[in-house]
């Protein structure tokens, strides 16, 4: 049994590393550690993590990576020391953890390139075509300012367009990723169910 002070320090470290939301999962995991098995905690938190992983790029998501790694290691510990389900159940759970981590990596990569735009270009065409002499050319100058503003707006529209496209690509990708994650979760629940049925069967006989 892990000493309570160790659990608290791990949770505190996680809180500092990953932010409050991710730490809440760990905190719950630590609080419930004594009462619940890691498999039960995993079954409870799994769909919430899948939902967070598949969040749109415009929605900020707390960094679950440390919490997932922590959960995966706890599962492997439990599988080795005091298993409450079959080894296959633990393997599928660990596989789901790895899939979450890889999906989060993919999300991070896409997020890093979101809103990226080419270097700003200065429109010097006006200066090359017309010569400004004095205040009689004020309208020419104002017209150049208009063109410059419209160019800036067009550049912003282009950036927004590509950002929207990147967000849409992630949403489409998420549908596939989520299906895979949900399939793994269903597999995990099915194996857990079988373990529970096996566990209760002799008692009922």
């Amino acid at each position, binding site marked *: 049994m892990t000493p309570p002070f160790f659990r608290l320090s791990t949770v505190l470290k996680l809180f500092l590393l990953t932010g409050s939301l991710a730490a809440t999962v760990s905190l719950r995991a630590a609080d419930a550690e004594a009462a619940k098995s890691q498999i039960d905690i995993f*079954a*409870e938190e*799994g*769909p*919430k993590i*899948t*939902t967070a992983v*598949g969040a*749109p790029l*415009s*929605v900020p998501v707390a960094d679950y990576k440390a919490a997932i790694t922590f959960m995966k290691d706890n599962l492997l510990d439990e599988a080795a020391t005091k298993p409450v389900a079959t080894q296959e159940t633990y393997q599928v759970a660990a596989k789901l953890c790895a899939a979450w981590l890889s999906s989060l990596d993919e999300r991070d990569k896409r997020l890093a390139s979101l809103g990226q735009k080419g270097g700003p270009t200065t429109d010097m*065409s*006006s200066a090359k*075509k*017309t010569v*400004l002499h*004095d*205040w*009689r*050319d*004020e*309208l*020419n*100058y*104002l*017209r*150049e*300012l*208009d*063109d410059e*503003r*419209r*160019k*800036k*707006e*067009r550049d912003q*529209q*282009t950036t927004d*367009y590509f950002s*929207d*496209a990147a*967000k*849409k690509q*992630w*949403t*489409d990708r*998420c*549908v596939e990723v*989520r299906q895979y994650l*949900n399939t793994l*979760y*269903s597999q995990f*629940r*099915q194996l857990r*169910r079988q373990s*529970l*049925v096996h566990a*209760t069967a002799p008692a009922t006989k």
Partner: protein
Amino acid sequence: MDSRRIRTAAVMFLWIALAARLAAADPPAGDLERTLLSCTWSFRNPAVKGGIKDLRFWSDSAATSAGDATTIIGIWHVTGPDEVTILYGPSTAIMLTFHADREAFDGEDGANKHIKGRRLEALLPKGAAKKMQPVAADIDSKPGQSQIDVISSQAASVTAGVIVPLDATAQDHRAAIITLRENLVDEAVMRPVAPAEAYQTATKLCDAWLVSLDERDKRLASYGQTRPTTILGYSRKSNLQASDYFRYLREIADAHRKELDDWRQAQFFIDAQKKQWNDRGTLLKQGLDALHYQVVEAVKARANAQ
């Protein structure tokens, strides 16, 4: 000799003045420009009875009344860190000086220095759609309640949270639905309280909710996506003289008409996307309600048999 010196000094002065104006108008202009374009403004000029009551600044340099986007009342430019000039005739202009918090302005039109205005309603950028991301939500249940009872009693509210217009906030019950689906299968295998058919239909209903949420997410992601517009680039094509005010006004009017057209076109597609989802949502809702009805009927039939 003296006259040449005076002329050289005058030319230099003009260049310095123009350079100073360029420098003054450029760097802080971005912030003021964004503020101007982001909302409508009230406009109070006590010298003109029955004049305009509000203003809207457009990115094509047109200044219009907020209520009537088609009639240009002047051409605006940022002419200082806090200063905007609205030309409304060949040699007439209103000068607006914005307060540091950008919430209000004081204006002057020649000798009339009593013009005032303040920030009114915020505007969405041109062609932008009001996108509301779904918020995470749980499915209510009572302690000890069977999973089939939970789905029977809460299905209507989950469906209502999923089939929501694209510009409203949907309830993202995804995590709760996945848990409920697996709990239903657990209950069906280990301690069933309804016929197997009820559990099968309930699982199907959960899958249908998840598919509907995915479809809505996809539509929301492409909702309001607009292509970049083209610019007319007049300054590259011809020269304007000081007396060409009306020619310049016509160029601004052309650009403004184009901007309004682009805006309306974007709005048309936004409305079409909203309508398509509403139509699709009606169909999906029918399917979801039918599945819910089947679950309720199966549970009732079992209860009646007992």
